[in-house]
């Protein structure tokens, strides 16, 4: 299945992040697992791109390659033309499991400041930025708290604040809202969209939730089971700003959903068949 041509009705700018024929193979004992078969995609400046795929496929692997934490077996990841071989200074990553990425021995502001080590600002400015970032996620009064004193949604917001304080150009997110309840998720989605539109960042957002992908993104890349390939690239033509009660009622939203659902369903079914055969 070849990649569907991208409708460049969007910004028409050059890609900030490019993935060319990325392939990642793991050696395991005697055999090898092909996590990523062949993925090519691109992300333009200030775009919100989702990568949608069934759970358990190589989405996290993909994100780790994008973040420079993993070396690809073939193909390359480049940011503004330069190949990524190590964590890029303009990229941050927000994990799904905040309890495993927020440092329990640091306070909330400590965690946020942690990210800014690379930045050459004076201490006072770093503190100001940290406070600003926390204000953006509405946690300004929790500076001296510790992660374990906060709810799941709040902890994830701290993780986001940490990424924001760093002020990267590109934010990669690995199913960041999957571990919270539905209401919190809706809140987080909206807050994050607001921050994104105000701060003008490029976001690559991994999810397995079709509705979330449609609601948040400008474009969606649909990924298959292992070995991962791009099945389709969908342009989301919904108006911004998106609102939970309005956007989800849009008939276009339902169309997109139905289309993506059938693709995902076919993928899941095939995945099950492969499992039973293998």
């Amino acid at each position, binding site marked *: 299945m070849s990649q569907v041509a991208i409708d460049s009705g969007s910004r028409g700018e050059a890609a900030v992040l490019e993935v060319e024929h990325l392939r990642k193979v793991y050696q395991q004992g005697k055999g090898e697992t092909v996590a990523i078969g062949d993925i090519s995609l691109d992300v333009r400046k200030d775009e919100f791109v989702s990568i949608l795929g069934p759970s358990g496929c190589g989405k996290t692997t993909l994100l780790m390659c994008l973040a420079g934490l993993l070396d690809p077996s073939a193909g390359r990841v480049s940011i503004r033309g330069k190949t990524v071989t190590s964590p890029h200074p303009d990229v941050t990553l927000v994990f799904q499991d905040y309890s495993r990425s927020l440092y329990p*021995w640091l306070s909330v502001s400590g965690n946020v400041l942690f990210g800014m080590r690379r930045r050459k600002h004076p201490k006072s400015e770093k503190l100001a930025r940290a406070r600003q970032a926390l204000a953006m996620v509405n946690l300004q009064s929790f500076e001296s708290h510790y992660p374990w004193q906060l709810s799941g949604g709040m902890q994830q917001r701290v993780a986001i604040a940490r990424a924001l304080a760093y002020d990267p150009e590109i934010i990669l997110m690995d199913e960041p809202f999957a571990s919270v309840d539905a209401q919190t998720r809706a809140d987080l989605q909206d807050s994050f969209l607001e921050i994104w539109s105000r701060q003008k960042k490029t976001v690559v957002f991994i999810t397995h939730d079709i509705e979330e992908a449609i609601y948040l993104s400008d474009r969606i890349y649909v990924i298959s089971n292992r070995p991962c390939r791009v099945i389709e690239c969908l342009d989301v033509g919904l108006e911004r700003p998106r609102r939970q009660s309005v956007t989800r009622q849009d008939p276009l939203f339902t169309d997109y959903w139905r289309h993506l659902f059938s693709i995902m369903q076919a993928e899941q079914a095939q995945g099950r068949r492969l499992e039973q055969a293998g």
Partner: protein
Amino acid sequence: MKRSRPWLGFAFLLACLLAWQTLVTVQVLDARTIPSPWTVIAAFADTQQLAVLGRQAVASLQRLALGFGLAAILAIPLGILIGQHKRLFRVLQPGLEMLRAIPAVILIPLAMLYLGMGTPMKVAVIAYGAFFPIVINTIYGVRNVETKFVLTARTFGYDRGEIFRFVLLPSTLPWIFSGMRIALSLGLVVTVAAEMVGTIDGLGYLILYGLRTFKVTQVFTGIVALGFLGWSLNKLFLFVQSRLIPWHPDFRKEGR
């Protein structure tokens, strides 16, 4: 969870003491072999005896501190080093397991041969015993650093040295403490054992000497003092721990 009723435990304790006292009074227990609880308690009021107890306790404590300190100074850096290098750990593992299998107390006669009966012998054996729980727990803590902690730091541009300082060390600290707590209680056991076998001074010696000279009250006061020592050391340790790693689940004031 039902609320606990500490008065119940207290009542039971009193009942036990009363039973003990009765057994001695009606001479089922010979007062020359087992003193009554009252005798023991009264002995603590005797300032002279108290002074003796205090001196011996200090002696025991000194040894424990030296041995424990020695073990910690060696075990923690070594554990951190070994924990970071998987191959090194695997190669050293058989040797470590073999050495660990030797109970420290059994080395007392050997140590007596090398170092005589005094403090150096005791410190050496205590250090040996305390070393292993600390080193093994430290290794375990280092090896089990949460991957995402390291990955997150890497995305923020931390290099290896910085990851070591800012991620590995704080993350391993609870494990180190855990090992040290075990080492502390083990160390106390070894201290007493060493003092009993290699007699010169200390609470262990005091207790055994009481036995040998039929000063049975001394046996009991020594044991009570020992219990108190062990208890206070534990509390002290927990206090230090709560200061140094206040964020650990054990010390969280509010649950979530």
